[in-house]
């Protein structure tokens, strides 16, 4: 099942690239768009995926690798089930995001860019989530939690854990 899912994703990626090649005579300029699409489909950029892009788009792999490692948005490792992005924009920082980050790190026992052992959370830093009025904030998956305190963030994390446990049991 896993492989058929992978195949399906790869087929979608190939279709996307075919469309790009169809519409432009500068396909290399769509590399970042293709990488976005790939990450969207697979959750991260694996070597196999990048090899496939290199072959289809006719772009040197070293170049793709250089681009994928340059931009922080691209993930090169499989990600946890939930992504926690802590905003370290200025407003959040001034309002104590540093403390919140320390708490999260301690609670999850991981650093920025890492995934917990159980594969449940990945931790990232964000520059500014544009919710400065609610500072300090974190974004878990696509939901923003604001006006955080050390206690509140632990509660939020625990809620995710609980929900997951319930869904497993139920």
């Amino acid at each position: 099942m896993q492989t058929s899912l992978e195949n399906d994703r790869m087929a979608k990626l190939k279709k996307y690239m075919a469309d790009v090649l169809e519409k432009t005579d500068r396909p290399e300029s769509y590399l970042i768009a293709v990488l976005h699409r790939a990450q969207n489909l697979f959750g991260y950029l694996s070597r196999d995926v990048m090899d496939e892009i290199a072959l289809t788009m006719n772009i040197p792999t070293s170049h793709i690798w250089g681009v994928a490692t340059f931009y922080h948005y691209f993930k090169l490792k499989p990600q946890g089930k939930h992504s926690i992005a802590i905003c370290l924009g200025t407003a959040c920082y001034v309002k104590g995001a540093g403390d919140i980050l320390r708490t999260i790190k301690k609670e999850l026992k991981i650093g920025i860019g890492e995934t917990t052992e159980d594969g449940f959370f990945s931790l990232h830093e964000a520059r500014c989530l544009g919710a400065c009025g609610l500072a300090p904030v974190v974004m878990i998956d696509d939901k923003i939690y604001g006006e955080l305190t050390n206690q509140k963030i632990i509660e939020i994390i625990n809620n995710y854990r609980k929900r997951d446990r319930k869904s497993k049991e139920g």
Partner: protein
Amino acid sequence: MMKPLDIIRKKRAEAINRIVGKGYLSTKRVYVGMATCEIAAGSKEVMEVFKEAVNKGLTDVYLSQKGCAGRCNLEPTVEVIEEGKIPVKYGKVNEEKAREIIERHLKGGEVIEEWVIK
């Protein structure tokens, strides 16, 4: 041939007609802030409350979304505009407050002063 300026005038007239067709001329116009920041603060849920009310028969109200006006720490914001009256701006609206705004302001015509941004 029509000049671009003539075309745009025609297009504007058409646009206004369409807006009016959607009920713009209702007595009360309600705008719910729906930008990233507003949504982060919970405006989606607030919008749902208003939508539900409209679906359930709240009449003479034109409901629309809007971008962020920039009042970050008071989001989500909701505006109620009536012709001939001073526009009312509610701040920090949540689902509960939204229901009350519907009952007291939209239906009852009362401006809930303590929630108004001044």
